[in-house]
């Protein structure tokens, strides 16, 4: 009962934030709505026993990436945009149709697969066992540093490349 209520709360916040994000005129407002959605998602992560990821979501996504977005918006002075920069009505209708059909199809697929083992709550029990034995961080850390060590290292390399790329792309041309 409590669970359902919390889930509904978070879901409404996430969905509402997302819709407001795409409907808002002011880019900064859009950004903040998205941050709200991220926070809600983080809550849902906790409810799904992904505690570490919930924390990382807040720290990295809401805390770093969105801040970066905000920096760029401020840098380019886009914060005052007043006129609506959406496309024509036809495009809006088409996007609405596309989006809703996409949602409908995926939802149908999900509900069709309801009979699978996902329906049971076994998963939750297993997760709890793992969490208790290794802790939230250890649960993710173990596969990360054991089986997926190489992708981990490569990701760090990727981040390095991203840094260098960002600097190179965004600097002013040398006079």
């Amino acid at each position: 009962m409590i669970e359902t209520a919390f889930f509904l709360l978070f879901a409404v916040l996430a969905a509402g934030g997302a819709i407001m994000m795409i409907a808002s005129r002011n880019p900064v407002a859009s950004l903040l709505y998205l941050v709200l959605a991220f926070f809600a998602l983080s809550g849902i992560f906790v409810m799904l026993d992904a505690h570490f990821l919930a924390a990382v979501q807040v720290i990295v996504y809401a805390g770093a990436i969105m801040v970066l977005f905000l920096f760029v918006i401020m840098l380019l002075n886009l914060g005052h945009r007043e006129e609506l920069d959406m496309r024509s009505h036809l495009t809006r209708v088409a996007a609405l149709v596309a989006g809703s059909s996409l949602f409908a199809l995926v939802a149908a697929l999900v509900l069709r697969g309801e009979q699978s083992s996902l329906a049971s709550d076994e998963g939750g029990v297993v997760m709890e066992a793992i969490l208790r034995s290794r802790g939230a961080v250890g649960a993710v850390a173990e596969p990360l540093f054991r089986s997926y060590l190489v992708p981990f290292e490569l990701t760090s390399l990727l981040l390095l490349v991203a840094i260098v790329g960002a600097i190179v792309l965004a600097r002013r041309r040398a006079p």
Partner: protein
Amino acid sequence: MNLDIENAALILSAFLFAVGTAGVLVRRNAIIVFMCVELMLNAVNLTLVVFSRSLGLEAQVLVFFVMAVAAAEAAVGLAIIIAIFRHYEGVDVDRFNLLRW
């Protein structure tokens, strides 16, 4: 129709993904488009987390990687937008049509 948390989360994820797609289709501001892409990525992350409950913790590792890559991609993408902004004096995506035939 018995909706437990997992199915509900999946449906929510589908909804977020659809909203992100619609946003990309509809908005002209490049930065907003980027944010919609981030939203789509998050929807996928949510899906992965749902499935990690039954399929193993590797899915969460994947989410971790997705976030890392999303960060890198956001950084580089925004750098590009800054560079374009200097050229076009605006970030209207409709004006970036040099790849036209």
